[in-house]
């Protein structure tokens, strides 16, 4: 475990991600006038603040070897509940925000309990959760509800000036605060170490006497909380609630986590990597926007390609690592899918 080469290998995906972002931003600055500015970078943060938040929650889930497909629809549900309560029932915005955060956490908690107590696959549980949350959106209303409450409008338009004319939004501040909390949670708490241990090998974690079950429930609760928080930020950003909001955001979040260098099999990765994963997705969109001649669907194709390249890279590392450990190289092609690894 302490061997130097392996240590370097673990940092390599992160290094690749960071340099890819630097190269893409550099290329953009080289080819397009006005690209190289602090505000373009800040806009990346402003336009993707909700994705940051969702992806941070997703990082913990994937680090533990699970997956959460419900995040996008929980974001949509949050916008819908907020809009409905604020606009149609005239609730106090602060009470609404508190309520939706509790609601999102509760949603995640319930899914975590199903996964923990009945040994269900996270994939199928969160898939059903995704159906449920979207369905609940449509139960509230099938139309978009726009928000005109002064509190929401005020926060939506408020810009915090940094370094002269440049500014960031409130959403970015929330995302950065969550990022700091998440890094602390992942690397400096017992919870974080348990998450890594579960992802590395769940049975070993159980045998070590770690609170695997409780941590699993907490991971999904945290992801639900992040989705709800992202929903709040998304509400500020869009100023409306709509059942079709954030469609496919779970895919963007998973893509960001993978591109950020987190192994899908769990146990390896960094929250910081996810940040760069989101930034890369944002830069692709910005590049395509600056270019003007490329259509929006190229974003999807490029993200798919990047996903492919990063997954391929991960497989290469895994195969090499298992060869070095010896013995299991013959089965390397089977993958380290926890469902398969069961004896």
């Amino acid at each position, binding site marked *: 475990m302490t061997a130097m080469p392996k240590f370097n290998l673990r940092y390599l995906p992160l290094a690749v991600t960071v340099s890819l972002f630097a190269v893409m931003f550099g290329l953009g600055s080289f080819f397009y006038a006005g690209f190289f500015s602090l505000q373009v970078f800040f806009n990346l943060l402003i336009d993707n603040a909700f994705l940051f938040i969702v992806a941070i929650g997703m990082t913990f889930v994937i680090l533990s070897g699970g997956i959460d497909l419900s995040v996008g629809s929980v974001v949509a549900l949050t916008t819908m509940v907020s809009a409905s309560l604020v606009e149609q029932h005239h609730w106090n915005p602060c009470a609404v925000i508190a309520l939706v955060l509790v609601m999102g956490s509760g949603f995640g908690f319930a899914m975590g309990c199903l996964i923990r107590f*009945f040994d269900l696959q996270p994939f199928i*549980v969160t*898939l059903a959760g995704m159906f449920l949350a979207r369905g609940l959106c449509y139960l509230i209303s*099938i139309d978009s509800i726009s928000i005109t409450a002064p509190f929401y409008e005020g926060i939506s338009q408020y810009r915090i000036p940094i370094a002269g004319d440049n500014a960031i939004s409130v959403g970015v501040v929330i995302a950065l605060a969550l990022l700091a909390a998440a890094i602390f949670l992942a690397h400096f708490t017992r919870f974080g170490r348990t998450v890594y241990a579960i992802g590395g090998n769940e049975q070993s974690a159980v045998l070590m006497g770690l609170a695997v079950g409780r941590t699993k429930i907490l991971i999904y609760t945290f992801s639900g909380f992040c989705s709800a928080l992202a929903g709040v930020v998304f509400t500020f950003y869009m100023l409306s609630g709509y059942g079709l909001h954030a469609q496919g955001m779970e895919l963007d979040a*998973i*893509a960001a986590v993978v591109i950020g260098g987190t192994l899908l099999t769990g146990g390896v990765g960094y929250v910081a990597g996810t940040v760069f994963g989101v930034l890369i997705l944002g830069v692709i969109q910005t590049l395509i926007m600056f270019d003007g001649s490329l259509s929006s669907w190229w974003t999807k194709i490029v993200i798919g390609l990047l996903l492919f390249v990063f997954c391929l890279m991960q497989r290469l590392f895994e195969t090499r690592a298992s060869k070095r450990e010896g013995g299991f190289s013959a089965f390397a092609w089977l993958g380290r899918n926890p469902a398969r690894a069961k004896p």
Partner: protein
Amino acid sequence: MRRWVARAARHPLLWPLITLVLLCVFNAFFSPGFLHLEVRGDHLYGSIVDIFNRAAPLMLIALGMTLVIATRGIDISVGAVVAISAAIAAVLIGGTLVIKDGVPEYVARIPMPLALLAALGAALACGMWNGMLVARIGMQPIIATLILMVAGRGIAQLITNGQIITIYYQPFFFIGNGFLFGIPFSLYVVAAVLAALLVATRRTALGVFIAAVGINPTASRFAGLNARAIMFWMYAFCGLCAGIAGLIICSNVKSADGNNAGLLLELDAILAVTLGGTSLGGGRFSIVGSIIGALIIQTLTYTIYSIGVPPEVNLVVKSIVVFLVMLLQSPTFRAKVFRAGAPAKS
């Protein structure tokens, strides 16, 4: 007689069938004319025919998905493959108005059989790509197919240039709307695929091989099975099924929409497969069960529409069904709930 009942009670298709029958009884009770069939012209009309017809694409995809899930995999790219296949067919066929001998006539851009072959070929290639990633490179099935799910929609939009392409070519509409001997043509397609699968899995060793790979890939490899090849071809077949479904959907709505064709279809297909009694853990699969599962979903949708509940409830009902089915399928849940109650009963 008693032994027969006991055997029937343990039959894996019993619960899906009971669900379907209950739904039908409910419908027959609450929406008059549900069971009514009538021959109008030379077509068979009625709610049941309608349900079968609308369920055809889902049944096809569920068939492909069953085999993938049986090998412990999953394919979430089927919706995108549907969009790609529909887009290719729509762009290649197109249809332009030509006046021939004074009669206006729509002409396909390239001959229809070629266009269909191209669309199916592309779908097969998509499936083989998934198969390669999973079986050769060894990626996790969810992620391997996630790549195509994200990129596939982009590719479909690239093909249609981001627009909804309308088709003006009469013969193409036959696939999704035509009737042959009074029955919708799409059902013949489903029946053909189903028959081929049943023969392949029941009359040859393939069914056992698939189950073996699903139960334990390593053991099946040691037993001399080419597990990789089996997995690879299951994904390829699933892609092909999605391609056929794409053609039916495209022909039915007479247009191709790269962004929305087959949206969320992968989830419906997975739901149909699980409802049919196929285990998500691999190994145990039922082809006929998946067909019944697809019919249950379509009947459920029909029921929701016909009893006047707002269609928005559909998703909530579906999700509750998924929760129930997966709990019932979970050995841990059954052990905790049913065993606890069993001693008191006996």
